[in-house]
């Protein structure tokens, strides 16, 4: 009943968890970033990688480990609450895994269609925010314009990237971004639900913190997955092509 794949999944989960603990418990898991809190975390990356390479269950387990590590290490009240520190982290690897599973087989044309739908949804959301008056009757202009401009730029960038890159790499990047966003949104959402942060503060932290983390997560996850699975065209080192 116990095949090699079963053992490999358990062992890989263990090692990914070890990396998580290493990153979460030492300073190497934090990258200095120009944000108010000063740091962007990369400790959630093993959970995303686990979700992508080993499936949602491993992603869940590694996420749990990340939550537990950040809970035991916490020096601010917010993360000493298991509902903020542990519960949201369970979903990082799971959402990343399902995004990856859903898009893995997609062709370039399908991914482009998906991007078009995404853009339409973003623009619709921006329009809705613009058209719905605030409580005092005024209309918010800045946020919908920001959403529209950033969304268009994002979709255009992904579209161009998709044109020249292996679509599997683009899918990995999207799954990594979804995983990282899950972390940011659920943690901050939970923190404001539990009353540690006011929604406005949470939104600010989400933008200043979430966006760098998404970018960093996407870069590193692509590098890791490409290295382990041999994806994409990589430049050969010139040494190995030397004529001896």
């Amino acid at each position, binding site marked *: 009943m116990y095949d090699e794949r079963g053992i490999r999944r358990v062992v890989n989960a263990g090692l990914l968890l070890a990396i998580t603990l290493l990153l979460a418990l030492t300073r190497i898991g934090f990258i200095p970033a120009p944000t108010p809190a000063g740091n962007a975390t990369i400790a959630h990356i093993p959970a995303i990688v686990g979700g992508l390479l080993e499936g949602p269950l491993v992603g869940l387990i590694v996420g749990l480990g990340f939550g537990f590590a950040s809970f035991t290490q916490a*020096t601010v009240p917010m993360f000493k609450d298991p509902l903020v520190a542990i519960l949201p982290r369970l979903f990082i690897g799971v959402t990343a895994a399902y995004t990856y599973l859903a898009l893995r087989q997609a062709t370039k044309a399908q991914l482009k269609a998906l991007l078009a739908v995404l853009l339409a949804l973003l623009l619709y959301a921006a329009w809705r925010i613009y058209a719905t008056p605030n409580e005092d009757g005024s209309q918010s202009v800045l946020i919908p314009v920001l959403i529209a401009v950033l969304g268009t730029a994002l979709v255009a960038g992904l579209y161009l990237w998709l044109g020249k890159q292996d679509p599997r790499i683009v899918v990995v990047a999207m799954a990594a971004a979804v995983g990282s966003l899950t972390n940011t949104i659920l943690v901050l959402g939970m923190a404001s639900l539990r*009353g540690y942060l006011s929604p406005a503060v949470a939104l600010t932290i989400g933008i200043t913190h979430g966006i760098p983390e998404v970018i960093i997560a996407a870069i590193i996850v692509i590098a890791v997955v490409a290295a382990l699975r041999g994806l994409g065209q990589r430049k050969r080192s010139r040494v190995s092509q030397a004529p001896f």
Partner: protein
Amino acid sequence: MASYQALRHVSIGQYIPTGSAIHRLDPRIKLVCFALLMACTVIISSYSGSLALLVLITSATLAARLPLGYLLKSLRPALPFILVLSLLQLLFYTSGSGAPGARVLFERGVITITTASVQAVVVALIRFLGLLLLTSLLTNTTTTGDLTHGIEHLLRPLTRLGLPGHELALVCTIALRFVPILGEQAEAILLAQASRTITPEPHGVRKLVDGATRGARLVVPLFVDAYRRSEELVLAMQARCYHGGRGRTQWRALRLAPRDLVALGLVILILVGTILSRTIVLP
């Protein structure tokens, strides 16, 4: 160079052997008590309740003969951050101001301080202290081996429902075993890169991109190395005919002693008290 040396000495709550009664409790009971007490600290929201719980947890810490000052010292670097955060919460916390019995203490512009917001901040701080002591009460009195052992036992009933209890415990054991090994590996990578003039501290305006590439430069080899080690471990386990948790016996069988039941009874009493105190309004 010294800054690279710290990586291999990672510890999740150093085990502090003092041989107290709490150290000798069964790890299963300790885990259950920890979870229940944690639930208590999270659900309690009155001044008197959270203070009483903090006193209880502190006395348990003292009973375990853990150095209280040492435990609290880890707070010092984060103290300014905590204070600023609390202040922000005090000034801009609004969601609870409509609570029954909340009085407005101070109001000017967007800033409103009510008794409810003061209570939320103070209770959050007390809760934080309690959880800090509670976590060290678990991790400083239990060896990691005992912890995973206890987790495996507690998950055993769930195996019948299809949850892989044994495998989960194995994942924890492997992870804890490999943290120092991967730490050493990370050290080696950093040293190798430093000797090729890649410095670990970023500077310049492109801090974020720099940081990301630097992170990738360390993390990618770390992942590749971990996967290589995992292949070796899989091979070793297969060679030893590993076949999962079924029919496995244990070298050190866990047995409940009377003191375990007493501890569990006490914690359940505290939990019942906490739930009751929520229905009776306390100051």
